[in-house]
C-alpha cells in the first residue's frame, strides 16, 4: 500500500495542527507529512482538496451482538458498518450471550475483531462490571483487563446497588479502567417506553422520567467523591438535569466523563408521535430543552465524547406494537453525518472539536494509545468530506440491521475513507 493523500486539511487535536498537509503512507505507516509533497508514480493519489484528514475515529459505545445474537449483528457486519461510517475502532458492550464477563469471551471478541474486515477496525471489548451483568457480584476485572477490556459496564442495565457500585469503583480504580454507567433508577422506569412528559401524556404511554437518570448520576457522583481514585463515565447522557450534575462534579475536580449519542442531540420525544418503533431507545428521546442542553454541553466541553449506542435489532423484532418493541437503534453509519449536520453546520462545534469528541477524548478516557500524526507513526486515519450532501438509505447499510429513524434524511458530511492496520478503505 502506497498512498499520497494530497492537499487535505489535517485536523489533529493531539499536535494542535489544523492546516493543509499532504501525507505519504507506505505499508500502514506515515512515511512523510508536509506541505505540497511530491511523490513518484508508485503512489496512488487520493485527492483530498476540501476534505479532512483526522486521527481515526472511535465509537466507544457499540453493541456488536456477538456472541449470542448473531441474527442482529456480528462482529464482522458491525465492523463493516463501523468502517463504512468512518470509524477505525469500536468498543463493544458486554450484553452478549454469554456476557463478556470472563476472560475467554473478552479474548474471543478481541481476536475475532482482528480477523474480520481485514482487521481495519480495532475491536476493544468493554467487559461486564458484574457477573452475568446481574448486579450482584463483581466480574473478574483484573483478568478481564488483561484480556483487553478497556472499560467495565453492565450497559443495558444500571449498576443498581449502591454497595456494588462502590466496590466496582474501588476495584476498577486499581487498574485505572473506567466504570461506564447506564444511569437509570430502574424502580422508576419499569413500564416506561418513552420519555415522561407532554408527549407521553398525549400518546397515553407510560413514561421514563428524566429524573430517573438524574438520580442515578447524582448518587454515583456522591460515591465517586468518596472513592476519588476511581474513574467514572456516564454512557449516553440524555437529560439537562443529569448534565448539570456532571458539570458541577467536573468543576469540583472529580474524575468523571460522559458521552452523548447523535440521536439525543438531534431528535426530541415528539418523534415518537406516529409510534415508529425506531424512535424507541433507552434512554429515550427527551425534550427540546434537553436537546438544547446536550448541544450546549458539547459546546462548552461538559460532554467529552460522541458515541452512538449502535443497537441493532432485526426488522421482525422492531415491527411490532410500540410497547413490545426492543429498545435501540443503529448509529454507526449515520453518526458523522448527523454530527456535522447538527453540530458543525449549526456552529455548535468546530471540526477540530468534533475530532476531539470522536477520537482524542474517547481514546484518552479508555487509555488507548494516542494516534500520532508524525513520520514513522502507524497510520490510523479517518478521511472526511464535510460538505457532501447525501440521503440516508437503510438498504445500503453494512450493518445487518436497519433500525434507524433517519432513513431518508438529507445529511451533510460523511466519511470517505478509513486507514488503519496497514489497510485502507474508501467509500
Amino acid at each position, binding site marked *: 500500500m502506497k498512498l499520497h493523500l494530497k492537499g487535505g486539511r489535517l485536523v489533529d487535536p493531539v499536535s494542535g495542527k489544523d492546516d493543509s498537509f499532504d501525507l505519504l503512507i507506505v505499508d500502514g505507516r506515515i512515511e512523510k507529512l508536509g506541505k505540497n509533497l511530491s511523490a513518484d508514480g508508485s503512489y496512488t493519489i487520493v485527492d483530498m482538496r476540501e476534505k479532512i484528514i483526522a486521527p481515526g475515529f472511535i465509537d466507544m459505545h457499540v453493541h456488536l451482538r456477538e456472541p449470542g445474537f448473531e441474527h442482529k449483528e456480528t462482529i464482522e457486519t458491525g465492523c463493516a458498518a463501523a468502517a463504512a461510517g468512518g470509524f477505525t475502532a469500536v468498543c463493544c458492550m458486554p450484553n452478549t450471550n454469554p456476557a463478556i464477563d470472563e476472560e475467554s469471551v473478552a479474548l474471543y471478541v478481541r481476536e475475532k475483531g482482528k480477523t474480520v474486515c481485514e482487521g481495519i477496525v480495532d475491536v476493544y471489548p468493554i467487559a461486564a462490571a458484574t457477573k452475568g451483568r446481574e448486579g450482584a457480584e463483581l466480574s473478574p476485572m483484573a483478568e478481564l483487563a488483561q484480556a483487553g477490556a478497556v472499560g467495565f459496564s453492565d450497559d443495558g442495565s444500571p449498576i443498581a446497588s449502591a454497595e456494588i457500585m462502590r466496590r466496582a469503583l474501588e476495584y476498577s480504580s486499581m487498574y485505572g479502567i473506567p466504570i461506564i454507567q447506564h444511569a437509570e433508577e430502574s424502580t422508576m422506569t419499569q413500564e416506561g417506553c418513552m420519555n415522561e412528559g407532554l408527549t407521553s*401524556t*398525549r400518546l*397515553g404511554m407510560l413514561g421514563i422520567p428524566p429524573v430517573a437518570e438524574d438520580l442515578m448520576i447524582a448518587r454515583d457522583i456522591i460515591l465517586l467523591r468518596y472513592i476519588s481514585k476511581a474513574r467514572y463515565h456516564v454512557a449516553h447522557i440524555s437529560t439537562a438535569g443529569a448534565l448539570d450534575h456532571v458539570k458541577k462534579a467536573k468543576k469540583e475536580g472529580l474524575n468523571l466523563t460522559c458521552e452523548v449519542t447523535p440521536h439525543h442531540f438531534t431528535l426530541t420525544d415528539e418523534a415518537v408521535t406516529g409510534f415508529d418503533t425506531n424512535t424507541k431507545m433507552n434512554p429515550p428521546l427527551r425534550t427540546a430543552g434537553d436537546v438544547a442542553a446536550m448541544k450546549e454541553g458539547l459546546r462548552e466541553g461538559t460532554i467529552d465524547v460522541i458515541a452512538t449506542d449502535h443497537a441493532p435489532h432485526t426488522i421482525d423484532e422492531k415491527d411490532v*406494537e410500540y410497547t413490545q418493541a426492543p429498545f435501540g437503534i443503529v448509529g454507526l453509519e449515520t453518526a458523522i453525518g448527523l454530527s456535522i449536520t447538527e453540530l458543525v453546520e449549526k456552529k455548535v462545534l468546530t471540526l477540530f472539536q468534533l475530532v476531539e469528541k470522536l477520537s482524542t477524548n474517547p481514546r484518552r478516557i479508555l487509555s488507548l494509545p494516542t494516534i500520532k500524526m508524525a513520520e514513522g507513526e502507524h497510520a490510523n486515519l479517518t478521511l472526511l468530506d464535510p460538505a457532501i450532501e447525501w440521503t440516508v438509505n437503510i438498504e445500503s447499510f453494512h450493518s445487518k440491521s436497519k433500525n434507524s429513524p433517519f432513513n431518508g434524511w438529507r445529511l451533510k458530511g460523511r466519511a470517505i475513507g478509513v486507514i488503519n492496520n496497514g489497510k485502507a478503505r474508501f467509500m
Partner: protein
Amino acid sequence: MKLKSRHLLGLDGMSKEEIALILDTAVSFREILDRPIKKVPPLQGKTVVNLFFESSTRTRISFELAERRLSADVVSFSTAASSVSKGETLKDTARNIEAMKIDMVVIRHPAAGSAHFLSRVVDANVINAGDGGHEHPTQGLLDMYTIWQKFGSLDGLRVCMVGDITHSRVARSNIYGLTTMGAEVSVCGPNTLIPREIEKLGVKVFHRLEDVIPRVDVLNVLRIQLERQKSGLFPSLREYHRFFGVTKEKVAKAPKPITIMHPGPINRDVELSADLADSEHSVILQQVTNGVAIRMAVLYLLGTSN
C-alpha cells in the same frame, strides 16, 4: 364533505368540521335505531373484522350491532379464540386476516399505538376501538354526541373527567374532541393518576371534587382499576371512594343539577354511587344507545368513501 383520513385512529388532530360531520351523520342513524326495522344497506357486500385483543363486552357488541345494521358481513375475533397465544405477531395476524379479503378492521388492543401500527401494515380501513392508554375515539365521539343531544351545543360547556386520567384512553379522546369543539374541559383525580403536563393539552387540573362540582355541567366518571392500588398509585378503594367517588351527596352542592356520565363498566359505589348512576341526571344508558349510532356513522363515513 369527507373525513381526511381513511382510518379512525384517534381524535387528536381531527378538525372541528370532521367531528361535526360524524356527530351530524350519527343523528340520522340514531333515528334508525328507533324504527321497527333497524337495518339499512350502505355496507352491503363489505366485510368488517372486529379484532379484540382485550376483553370487552359493550364495545364489541356495540360495533357488531352497528356493522350488522349497516348490512356488513361481520367476523369477530377475541383473544381467547385468537392465535396470539400461539406466539403470532400482530402484524402476521392482521395480514392473515386481510388475506381473506376484508374491507374494514376494528381493533381493540392493550398497547398504545397498535391501531396506528395496524393501519401501516394492512390496506383495510382501520377503526381504533381502544389502544392501551392512548385513545378510544368512538367513545369520545359518543360521549360528545350524548352531551350535544342533552345541551344542544358543546361550545363553552364545562365537562370534567374524574378519576384515573393517566391510564385512560377515554379521557384522552374526550379531551381532544371536546377541546376542539370549544368545550371547557377539566380533569379531577389523585395527583398520582394525573399525567404530567396535561395542562398543556388545554385542561384544568383539580384534586378535590368539591372544587369542581360548583363549576361544571357534566361529570364524566372513569372506572378505577384495582391494579393501580397494587402498583402504589393510590392507597385504598375506601379512601378513593371517600375523596374521589362521585355521590349524590357531593353533587347536591352544585348550583344546578350535574349530568353524570360513565363509559362503563361501573364499579358501583366505588367511583360512582349506585343511586346517582340510576338517577334522572345520569345519561349512562343513553351513552350506550348513542354508541351504536356513532359507530354506524363512523363505519358509514369510512366504508363508503373509497
